[in-house]
């Protein structure tokens, strides 16, 4: 089988599944689940075949022209290289386990046909982003992924919360796409092409064409899709969707698409742009970590955690690329940014999906209770879930050596240390905070004693839910070691990630250890196990208030939409009705009417008047005949 066909099947299988679900299986849940799961399995099997047997690791590209208008040519094609192979692996692997999880989790849902159709459309769109070989094609699938997200967040469509959240997600993403598309068009007209390989060549020969503006506009897309500040507001609200969606789309894959895009287009970023990218990431990471402390809903905590980790990835890209530019002796130095961010993306995909699925297991068992202060004591009722969740917490905290998160965070902290001291301190502090709030979550929800009836009656979830947890837990712990990955992927993971050497090596270990372990211990001390109330809320209200305020972004946006945008729209509509419809149109009708009224007055109905008019006409005619008007009329 040639690679082109295999990739086409990988891409189109979920689309075919979605189509079949739409035609045949809207009401037949079992068929829908089978089709969707089957597509996911096909994707995973074919991808694994690619990595272990069918692909030799060399870059592969195939493309065909899809649209030509004048000088604009849009191609559709696949580009399979180290980077896209890694992303393909993540999407296929994590995606499959989440499909399996959904089968168990959604078993009492009434609209499973719609759900699994949406899930398959999402896989299609995401794979399109992964395999795209040019910017236009990527943009197309970028929008499609946004659509899938809209559809799936709004799954519980009879709730107001879901309706508003899905709208918000789509619109905020569109704002990001606004900048993104401008950037793509500028890139197109500057270089004459949007194909990644061709762009790289042209940039290689004419690096002066790359401008900071171009890179920043392209970064706007990342702001939207990967929820960086200030376009981060949609992600916490997106938790209104079902938990498997939060896991797949809003943790592991879709939000990571922005980081993936940075990797794909890294050569289009100037140094100034990279500085800005790095700092946006750092600020997002720190702020989101601060905000996670005031959350009670288990999914919201994980959402802010995701925001923070995405900030890490973006910062990693920026700082790593800067590091590579300045210390570019190793031959892979150019790729340090990509390496650091993609490594963290990979490990994050595993442990964040695990954490979300674990929370799903908990929510499912506690009959849709999501407040952590009403849980507690779950370690006795749901041992496997607790164990796997603990693995996830250890991974995200970055405990040395036993956590995949340690290795990836390590790389990012290392490049931060080398590139920018302030960033380094902030990121290390954030690592501490991460361990702290994740520990808070774990200790309150899982340890201690049950705090409510639903927690009392919790029991372990069925195998369709637990098996994915176990698999992901294994990868969360072991994901830092290269042997977990197929050989063909080890290039990116192994050689592109900047590794500290010598004294730096030990320094980093010590720092990570301190941050993670102290964080976890502090969490246990401050919050206690199985608490029913938030101690910080009681003892340090100002600190809690700052955290809960989330810096008022949502309020500012809400104010803007309601007071500014809607009012402006109403004013414009009023002016339009007043001036154009009123003055111009009705006005001209009034003028015509006025002329009519004036002309009517000539019809007096009295014969004498008509005779006088006749006389007047006669006089005029006589004057004309007598040459009176000769000077005036030529």
């Amino acid at each position, binding site marked *: 089988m040639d690679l082109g066909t295999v990739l*086409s099947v990988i891409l189109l299988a979920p689309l075919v599944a979605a189509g079949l679900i739409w035609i045949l299986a*809207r009401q037949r849940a079992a068929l829908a689940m089978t089709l969707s799961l089957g597509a996911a399995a096909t994707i995973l099997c074919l991808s694994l075949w690619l990595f272990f047997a069918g692909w030799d690791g060399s870059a592969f590209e195939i493309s*065909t*022209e*899809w*649209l*030509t*208008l*004048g*000088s*604009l040519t849009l191609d*559709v094609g696949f580009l399979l290289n180290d980077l896209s192979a890694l992303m393909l692996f993540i999407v296929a692997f994590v995606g499959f386990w989440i499909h399996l999880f959904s089968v168990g989790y959604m078993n009492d849902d009434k609209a499973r046909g*719609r759900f699994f159709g949406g899930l398959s459309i999402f896989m299609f769109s995401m794979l399109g982003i992964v395999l795209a070989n040019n910017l*236009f094609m990527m*943009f*197309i699938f970028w*929008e*499609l992924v946004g*659509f899938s997200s*809209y559809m799936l967040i*709004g799954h519980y*469509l*009879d*709730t*107001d919360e*879901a*309706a508003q959240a*899905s*709208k918000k997600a*789509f*619109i905020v993403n*569109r*704002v990001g796409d*606004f900048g993104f*598309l*401008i950037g793509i*068009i*500028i890139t*197109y*007209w*500057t*270089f*004459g*092409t949007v194909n990644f390989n061709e762009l790289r060549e*042209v940039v290689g020969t*004419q690096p002066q*064409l790359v401008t900071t503006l171009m890179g920043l506009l392209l970064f706007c897309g990342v702001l939207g899709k990967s929820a960086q500040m200030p376009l981060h507001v949609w992600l916490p609200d997106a938790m209104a969707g079902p938990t498997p969606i939060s896991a797949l789309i809003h943790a592991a894959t879709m939000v990571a698409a922005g980081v993936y895009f940075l990797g794909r287009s890294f050569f289009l970023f100037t140094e100034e742009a990279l500085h800005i990218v790095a700092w946006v990431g750092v600020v997002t990471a720190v702020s989101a970590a601060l905000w996670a402390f005031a959350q009670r809903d288990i999914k919201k905590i994980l959402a802010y955690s995701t925001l923070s980790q995405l900030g890490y990835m973006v910062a990693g890209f920026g700082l790593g690329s800067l590091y590579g530019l300045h210390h570019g002796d190793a031959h892979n130095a150019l790729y340090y940014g990509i390496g650091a961010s993609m490594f963290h993306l990979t490990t994050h995909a595993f442990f964040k999906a695990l954490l979300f699925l674990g929370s799903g297991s908990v929510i499912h068992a506690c009959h849709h209770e999501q407040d952590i202060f009403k849980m507690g004591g779950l370690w006795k009722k749901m041992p496997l879930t607790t164990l796997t969740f603990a693995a996830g917490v250890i991974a995200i905290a970055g405990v040395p050596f036993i956590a995949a998160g340690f290795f990836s965070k390590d790389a990012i902290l290392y490049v931060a240390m080398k590139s920018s001291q302030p960033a380094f301190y902030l990121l290390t502090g954030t690592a501490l905070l991460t361990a702290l709030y994740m520990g808070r979550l774990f200790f309150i929800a899982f340890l201690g004693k049950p705090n409510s009836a639903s927690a009392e009656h919790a029991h372990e979830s069925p195998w369709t839910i637990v098996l994915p947890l176990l698999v992901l837990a294994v990868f969360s712990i072991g994901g830092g070691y290269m042997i977990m990955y197929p050989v063909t992927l080890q290039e990116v993971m192994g050689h592109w990630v900047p590794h500290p050497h010598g004294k730096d090596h030990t320094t980093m270990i010590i720092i990570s250890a301190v941050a993670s372990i102290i964080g976890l211990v502090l969490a246990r001390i401050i919050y206690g196990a199985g608490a029913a109330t938030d101690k910080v809320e009681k003892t340090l209200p100002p600190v809690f208030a700052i955290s809960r305020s989330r810096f008022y972004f949502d309020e500012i946006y809400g104010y803007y939409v309601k007071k500014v*945008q*809607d009012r*402006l*729209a109403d004013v*414009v*509509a009023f002016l*339009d*009705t007043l001036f*154009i*419809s009123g003055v*111009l*149109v009705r006005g001209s*009708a009034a003028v015509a009417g006025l002329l009519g009224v004036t002309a009517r007055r000539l019809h007096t109905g009295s014969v004498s008047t008509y005779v006088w008019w006749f006389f007047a006409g006669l006089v005029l005619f006589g004057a004309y005949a007598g040459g009176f008007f000769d000077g005036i009329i030529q």
Partner: protein
Amino acid sequence: MTTQLPIALLGGIGEFLTSAGHNQPVLNALLLMLAIVVPLVVALALAISGALSERAVKVCGALGFLVPGLISLWLAAVYISAFPFGGYAFEMSADLGLLERFGIQLHLGLNGLALPFYIMAGLVGMAAGFYAIQSGVERLRLYLILLLVMQGGLMGVFSSIDVLFFYFFHEFALIPTFIMIALWGRKGRKAVAIEVTIYLTFGAMITLAGLIALYLFSGAEQFNMIAMREAIVEAPYQGTLFGLLLIGFGVLVSLFPFHTWAPRAYATAPAPAAMLHAGVLKKFGLYGLIQLAYPLLPQGAADWAPLLLWLALGNLLIIGFVTMSQRDLKLMLGNASVMHMGYAFLGLYAYSTVGIGAAIMMLFAHGLSVALLFLLADVVEKRGGTSDFKELGGMGLRAPVLMGLFTAAMLASIGLPGFANFWGELGIFVALFASDTPWVLYLSLIGIIISAVYGLRAVASVFFGEAKGEFKGGDITPAEKAPALLLLISLFVIGLWPKVVSDPVNESVNRSFKDAVPTVTASTDEPTLSE
């Protein structure tokens, strides 16, 4: 690979059937004529025949819409496969005696520029006709007669090479709109009907003046597009002529500030009339600009370009905000359709092959999607009893299929990839950056945010949330679903394989504008003019 498959399929059928005998060109030209004649004959038959059963009326009506639709698809297949280099096909002309001295004949034919509009007219006509047939209105016979007359006129507009008949068929198709608004419209119909009649006739008068003046000044012997294109008008008059045509056509296309008739007309009109007018007839103006004004008056176009830029931005941004403030579904859709004309005008403003070609594609897709939206909005109104957002809500669970179709239609209209509208809009954006004023790209892209806001707000208000208000009847019926699916599937097919439409358009634009339009090439320097 996968692009060639549908083209090969269509081409194969076309080849097979066009290669059989050399009589085929005649047959196709005859079909072109039939597409106009059949609806008119059916209308006449319905008008003059005595008592007919409801069933017979419906069957005749269905025939009257089906035939031109199928003919348009057939001719499209033949054109795409047999005429890969653009140019005019299926020509036929008929002498009409005394009009000959003015150079007027009944001259029909299609070229790559007309083809997308022609297909759209056939498809929307079929959808509107089928929807009308099952809609259960009073005096169905008169309703169908008027719609059939509209359909005949529409097929004539886009297949007419002779300019006077182009205009004549447009008036032919326009008059029934006024009557339908007056008789079957929603509340306020009398006033709206009068306003629309006067406004559009005013626009048509200016257009006629411009067309005749163009004919006289171009010095062509015949009043048709082919002859006139050979003779480009000399410089001093180009500005005035282009201005006349721009304003005249602009009124008909609801260019800002001549747009206020459109939202009220579409909101008040019965759905099939709104579908045919907003979807197809409105495109008459832009089609006329592309076929006549731009190729013959390049200097005039350049003179008017700065003004056109601001007017088009007015359409896009000002009417975009007006749309956002609407609280009635049909008024919102009417305003949205005015907003989208802004994109098309911007594509023309960009004045390059990309710009004009993308504008045509966008208009094709817009015709289908706005017709679909008006159809579904009418279904929503029938179910919910009102089209006011404040009183509608939560229909999603009660009518899931309707929700799915409406959401798909709305997403198509706001330019989601996977539907045909995306290609047109993308092309226009790309073209704008290469125009004289690249900054207009930033302003026009705000349009995608505006359209997402009002589109999703509409979907959420009508379908999401708690169930509110009354709900008569069930989910969308198969009879209503069929025309909707026809349009949606067409949008989807072109969304996936845009080449089907874009290749003929591309070739024709290159041909028609060979000296006038710069084909801008992307390079590392400033855009340069090239062949």
